[in-house]
C-alpha cells in the first residue's frame, strides 16, 4: 500500500470520533432521503400492484335505480373495457358488547362469488352462498376491531328491517384501502364496516330486483376517464345518477393518493434541507480538518508531490468519510423506510406490502451527498494545496489579536481572563464562528420543523372538532324527512338539542372547471355543527347565495361574486346559477354551504332534512344508542368524540414516530457540529491549553476556555435556529395544500423550548465527550515538539 494511503487510514482511525460525527451528519441526509423516497415508492408500488391484481375500477357511478339491461349500453361507451353493475347502500349494525351503533356499507356480490371488478382479497372463509341471503363477508379491519370470526353473527338494520347475518368470510378490497365512513376523516374500524352480501339478498332488501344502483367500470388502456364520466352521466341521468367519477375521486384512493402527495412534498423538502445541512457541515469540518494539516501539505509538496496528488489524498479522506456516512444513511434510511411503510400499512388496509425502495433512490441519495461533500470540500482542499510549500510549513503566524472593545479596561474588569479568552476566540474568527452557529442553528430549525407538526395537528383538531363542532352525534338519514323528524329525535333519551341539515350531491361548475361535492343546507346560524372560518370564527349564512371554502374557490377558480352553476344530481336534477357570497378558510376538505331554505327551494321540495346533529347528555348516551340502533330511517351515526379519539390515536401512532425520527436526526446534527468544532479547536489550541496548564491553570479552567466557546456558540445559535425553524416550518406548512388538508401554520412556544433544550443537551453531551480528552492532555509531549 502506498504510504499516503496508509497515512489516510491511520489518520481516519486517529480521528475516528470526528469521522463518525461527520458520517453521522451525512447519514442523516441520506437517511431521510432514502426513508421518504422508500416509503413513497413502497406505498405507490403496493397500491399499484393491489389495484392491478384485484381489478380496481377506473370509473364509478351511483344511481337511484337502473335496469340491469342498461349495463349493455354502458359497455357500449367507447373506451369501456368491462362493466359491473351492483347494489350498494348504507345500513346500521348492532354489535354485541358494543353500545354505539356502527355504520356499514353494503355491497353486492355476483352469483359467481368473486366480482369482476374490485375483487376481494379473501383472508379467510369463503364467498357467500347465494341460496342463503343471510351470509356476509366482513372487511378485515372491522372483524379484527371486534374480534369477529367466521361463523359469528351480526345484527343489521337494512332498509328498516332488522336482520341477523352470518359471517362466512373475511376480506380486503381495493375499494376500501382507506375504509372511511361518510363524512369521516379517518378510518374508524370499530364504527365503520364494509359488508359483502349476495346480490339477490340485497336486491330483495332494497327492492331492486332486476335493477342496480351502482356501477363500476374499467377502461381500455389510454382512455380518458373524463370523457367516459360525461357519457355515463348523460346515460344515467334519467335513472337518478348522482354523478359518475373517475378513480382519482374515489374516496379511498383519493385519501391514499393525498397521503402519497404529502409524502412527496416531504420527500422533496426535508431531504433537501438535511442534505444541504449535511453538506454544509461536512464542508465546515473538513475545511478545518485540512487547515490543521497545513504543515503536512507543505511537507508533501516539498518532497515533490504535485498539487493534484496532495489534493487527491485529502479528497480520498473526504470520500471515505462520506462513504461511511452514505452506508450508514442507507442502512438507517432503509430501516426507517421499512418502519414508516409498515406504519402506513397499518393505516391502510393492504393485503400485502411491497417494501421496494428503488435502488435509484439509494444511488441518488448517495451520489447527491458524495457530490455535496466533495464539491463542498474541493474549495478547502484547493485552497490548502495552493499554498506555496514554504508558506504551508511555516507555523501559522501568531494570531494578530488587536485591541478591541474586549480588551478595553471597562470590560476586562467585568470578565475574568478565561472568559475574555473565549470572547476573543469567538470574535477573532467571525466567519468560522458564524458557520458553527449556523450549523447548530440548523439542528434547532429541523427540530422546530418536526415539532411544529404536532402543534399544527393540535390546532387542526381544536378548530375542526372543537370550535366548529358542538354536536355529540350526527345521524345520516336514509332519505329526506320533514322537520318533524327533529321533534322525533328530540324525544329520544338524552337528546338536548337537534339541528337539521339538508345535504345534496351536486356538480359545481365554473368556467371550464367542475367539482363534484356535497352541498350542505344549514340554518342561518348554527348552534351545533358550525360553519366556521378558520381565520375568523363562526359565519352567519346570508339568505341567498353560496358560501364556499377557499379551497373550493381555488379548485373552481372562482371568487367572490362568481356565479357558480350547480348541476344537482338527485331529485328533479335542477340546474341553477348561484352567486358566491362569501369565501372562508378551512383546514379540511372543500365544503360549500347554503341556507337550508335556499337548498329546499332549489330542490323544489318542502322543508326537509337528511342529516341531524344532536347534543346529548352523556349519562343517557347508551340509552340513546340503543334507540338509534332500532330507528329505521337511520343510515349512519357519527360520534364526534370517537372521531377525535381516532384522530389522536392515529396521529400518536404515526406522527410521533416521525417526530422521533427527526428529533434523532436533529440531535445527530447538533452532535456532529459541536463535537467536531470542539475537537478541531482542541487540536488547534492543544499547545496553548497545555501551556496554560503548565503555568497553573486548572483542568476546569482550560475546559472552560475550550468548551465555553462551544457552549457560547450554541447559545448564540438557539435564537438563530428558532428564526430559521420558524421560516422553514411555516414555509413547509403552507406548502402542504391538498384537497384533503391544509396545515395550520402554528408553532407553539413550547416547541421552540423543546427544540432548544434538545439541541443544548446534544451540545453539552458532545462537549463532555471532548472534555474527557482534555483531561488526558499530555502536557510534556505537547510542549516538547511542535507538531
Amino acid at each position: 500500500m502506498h504510504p499516503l494511503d496508509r497515512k489516510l487510514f491511520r489518520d481516519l482511525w486517529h480521528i475516528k470520533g470526528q469521522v463518525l460525527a461527520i458520517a453521522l451528519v451525512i447519514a442523516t441526509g441520506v437517511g431521510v432521503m432514502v426513508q421518504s423516497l422508500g416509503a413513497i415508492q413502497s406505498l405507490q408500488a403496493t397500491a399499484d400492484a393491489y389495484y392491478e391484481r384485484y381489478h380496481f375500477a377506473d370509473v364509478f357511478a351511483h344511481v337511484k335505480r337502473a335496469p340491469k339491461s342498461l349495463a349493455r349500453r354502458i359497455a357500449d361507451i367507447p373506451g369501456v373495457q368491462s362493466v359491473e353493475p351492483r347494489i350498494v347502500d348504507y345500513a346500521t349494525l348492532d354489535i354485541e358488547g358494543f353500545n354505539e351503533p356502527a355504520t356499514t356499507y353494503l355491497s353486492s356480490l355476483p352469483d359467481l362469488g368473486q366480482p369482476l371488478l374490485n375483487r376481494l382479497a379473501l383472508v379467510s372463509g369463503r364467498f357467500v352462498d347465494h341460496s342463503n341471503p343471510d351470509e356476509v363477508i366482513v372487511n378485515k379491519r372491522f372483524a379484527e376491531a371486534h374480534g369477529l370470526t367466521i361463523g359469528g353473527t351480526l345484527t343489521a338494520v337494512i332498509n328498516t328491517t332488522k336482520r341477523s347475518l352470518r359471517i362466512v368470510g373475511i376480506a380486503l378490497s381495493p375499494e376500501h384501502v382507506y375504509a372511511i365512513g361518510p363524512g369521516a376523516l379517518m378510518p374508524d374500524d370499530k364504527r365503520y364496516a364494509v359488508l359483502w352480501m349476495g346480490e339477490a339478498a340485497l336486491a330483495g332488501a332494497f327492492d331492486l330486483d332486476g335493477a342496480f344502483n351502482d356501477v363500476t367500470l374499467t377502461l381500455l388502456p389510454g382512455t380518458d376517464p373524463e370523457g367516459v364520466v360525461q357519457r355515463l352521466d348523460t346515460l344515467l341521468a334519467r335513472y337518478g345518477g348522482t354523478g359518475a367519477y373517475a378513480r382519482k375521486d374515489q374516496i379511498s384512493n383519493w385519501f391514499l393518493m393525498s397521503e402519497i402527495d404529502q409524502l412527496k412534498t416531504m420527500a422533496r423538502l426535508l431531504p433537501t434541507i438535511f442534505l444541504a445541512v449535511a453538506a454544509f457541515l461536512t464542508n465546515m469540518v473538513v475545511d478545518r480538518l485540512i487547515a490543521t494539516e497545513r504543515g503536512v501539505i507543505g511537507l508533501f509538496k516539498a518532497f515533490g508531490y504535485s498539487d493534484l496528488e496532495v489534493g487527491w489524498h485529502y479528497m480520498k479522506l473526504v470520500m471515505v468519510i462520506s462513504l461511511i456516512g452514505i452506508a450508514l444513511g442507507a442502512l438507517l434510511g432503509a430501516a426507517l423506510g421499512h418502519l414508516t411503510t409498515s406504519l402506513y400499512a397499518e393505516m391502510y388496509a393492504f393485503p400485502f406490502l411491497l417494501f421496494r425502495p428503488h435502488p435509484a433512490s439509494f444511488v441518488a441519495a448517495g451520489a447527491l451527498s458524495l457530490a455535496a461533500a466533495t464539491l463542498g470540500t474541493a474549495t478547502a482542499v484547493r485552497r490548502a494545496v495552493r499554498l506555496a510549500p514554504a508558506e504551508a510549513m511555516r507555523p501559522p503566524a501568531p494570531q494578530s489579536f488587536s485591541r478591541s472593545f474586549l480588551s478595553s479596561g471597562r470590560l476586562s474588569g467585568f470578565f475574568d481572563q478565561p472568559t475574555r479568552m473565549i470572547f476573543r476566540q469567538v470574535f477573532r474568527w467571525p466567519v468560522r464562528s458564524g458557520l458553527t452557529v449556523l450549523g447548530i442553528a440548523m439542528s434547532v430549525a429541523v427540530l422546530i420543523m418536526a415539532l411544529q407538526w404536532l402543534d399544527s395537528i393540535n390546532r387542526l383538531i381544536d378548530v375542526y372538532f372543537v370550535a366548529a363542532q358542538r354536536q355529540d352525534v350526527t345521524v345520516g338519514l336514509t332519505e329526506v324527512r320533514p322537520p318533524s323528524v327533529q321533534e322525533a329525535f328530540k324525544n329520544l333519551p338524552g337528546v338536548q338539542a337537534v339541528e337539521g341539515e339538508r345535504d345534496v350531491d351536486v356538480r359545481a361548475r365554473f368556467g371550464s372547471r367542475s367539482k363534484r361535492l356535497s352541498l350542505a343546507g344549514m340554518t342561518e346560524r348554527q348552534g351545533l355543527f358550525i360553519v366556521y372560518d378558520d381565520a375568523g370564527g363562526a359565519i352567519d349564512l346570508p339568505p341567498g347565495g353560496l358560501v364556499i371554502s377557499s379551497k373550493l374557490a381555488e379548485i373552481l377558480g372562482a371568487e367572490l361574486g362568481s356565479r357558480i352553476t350547480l348541476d344537482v344530481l338527485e331529485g328533479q336534477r335542477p340546474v341553477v346559477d348561484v352567486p358566491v357570497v362569501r369565501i372562508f378558510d378551512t383546514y379540511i376538505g372543500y365544503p360549500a354551504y347554503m341556507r337550508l331554505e335556499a337548498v329546499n327551494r332549489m330542490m323544489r321540495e318542502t322543508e326537509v332534512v337528511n342529516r341531524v346533529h344532536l347534543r346529548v347528555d352523556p349519562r343517557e348516551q347508551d340509552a340513546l344508542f340503543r334507540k338509534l340502533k332500532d330507528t329505521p330511517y337511520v343510515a349512519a351515526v357519527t360520534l364526534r368524540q370517537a372521531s377525535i379519539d381516532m384522530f389522536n390515536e392515529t396521529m400518536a401512532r404515526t406522527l410521533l414516530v416521525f417526530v422521533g425520527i427527526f428529533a434523532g436526526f436533529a440531535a445527530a446534527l447538533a452532535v456532529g457540529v459541536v463535537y467536531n468544532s470542539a475537537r478541531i479547536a482542541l487540536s488547534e489550541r492543544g499547545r496553548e491549553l497545555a501551556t496554560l496548564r503548565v503555568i497553573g491553570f486548572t483542568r476546569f479552567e482550560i475546559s472552560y476556555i475550550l468548551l465555553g466557546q462551544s457552549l457560547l456558540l450554541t447559545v448564540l445559535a438557539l435564537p438563530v435556529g428558532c428564526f430559521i425553524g420558524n421560516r422553514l416550518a411555516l414555509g413547509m406548512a403552507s406548502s402542504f395544500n391538498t384537497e384533503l388538508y391544509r396545515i395550520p401554520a402554528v408553532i407553539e412556544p413550547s416547541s421552540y423550548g423543546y427544540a432548544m433544550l434538545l439541541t443544548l443537551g446534544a451540545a453539552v453531551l458532545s462537549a463532555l465527550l471532548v472534555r474527557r480528552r482534555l483531561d488526558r492532555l499530555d502536557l510534556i509531549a505537547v510542549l516538547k515538539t511542535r507538531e
Partner: protein
Amino acid sequence: MQTDQREADDARKADAPPAKTALSARGLTKVYGTGELAVWALRGVDLDLREGELVVLLGASGSGKSTLLNIVGGLDRPTEGSVHFDGAEITRFNDARLTRYRRDHVGFVFQFYNLVPSLTAEENVALVTEIAPNPMKPSEALGLIGLGDRQTHFPAQLSGGEQQRVAIARAIAKRPRILLCDEPTGALDSQTGVVVLEAIERINRELGTTTALITHNAGISAMADRVIRLADGAIQDVSINGHKIAASELSW
C-alpha cells in the same frame, strides 16, 4: 569497501580541479508584504553551490537564511533574481516543473523534523521513495544513518535525534543532487546534534551530495568546506574553511 570509497573520495577532492557548479543563484531578492509593512528578507543574494561540497550558511535569526534555502530548493519564489540548476532556470519553472525539480533532485531536512506522525520511520522514508525516479530502499537509507533497527517505530516512539536522522534518511533516500538542511540541530542538545551532523557529513562524503546546511551556530561552521555569512538579507562574506574538522569533534 567503505574505506576504499572514502579514500577514493578523498583522492578525488584532493587533486580535482575546482568542482563544477551544481546550482547558482543571482540577485535573489525576496520581499514579504507590501508598502509600509514590506519586509526585505533577501536583498540581492548571489550564491553558488559546487558539486559535492558542504556549505554552511551562517547568520542570526531573521537574517534570511530560510528564505534563501526555500527559494533555492524550489519551495518558494523570489521577488527578483534567478536560480539556475543543470542549465535550467528553475525560477522560471511553472508549478508542475518546480514540483518535478523538488521530487527528482532536492532533499530537505527541517529544524522540527516534520515527520508524518501516523507513519512509521520506514513509511516516512517510503513517502519519498515512492515518487522518486531512482531511490534507495527505505531500509537502506535508514541503515545509512544507523537506524536500521528502528524501521517500524512511529515518530512518537523515537527520540528527537532519532527523528531527525529519520528525516535525513528520508531526504537522502531519493539520492538527491542537493541536500538542504534548515537548522537540523536547532531543536536538539549538542550531543544529539553532533550525531545528526555526523549523519549529514557522512552522506555528503559517501554519496557526494551537494549539501547546504543552515545554522545560527558559528561552531558548526568548522565542518564546512565553505562558510557563507548572511546578515540582514545580504551575504556578508564567503570563506573557504581551511581547517575542516569532523563533525564528531564539534561541540557547543
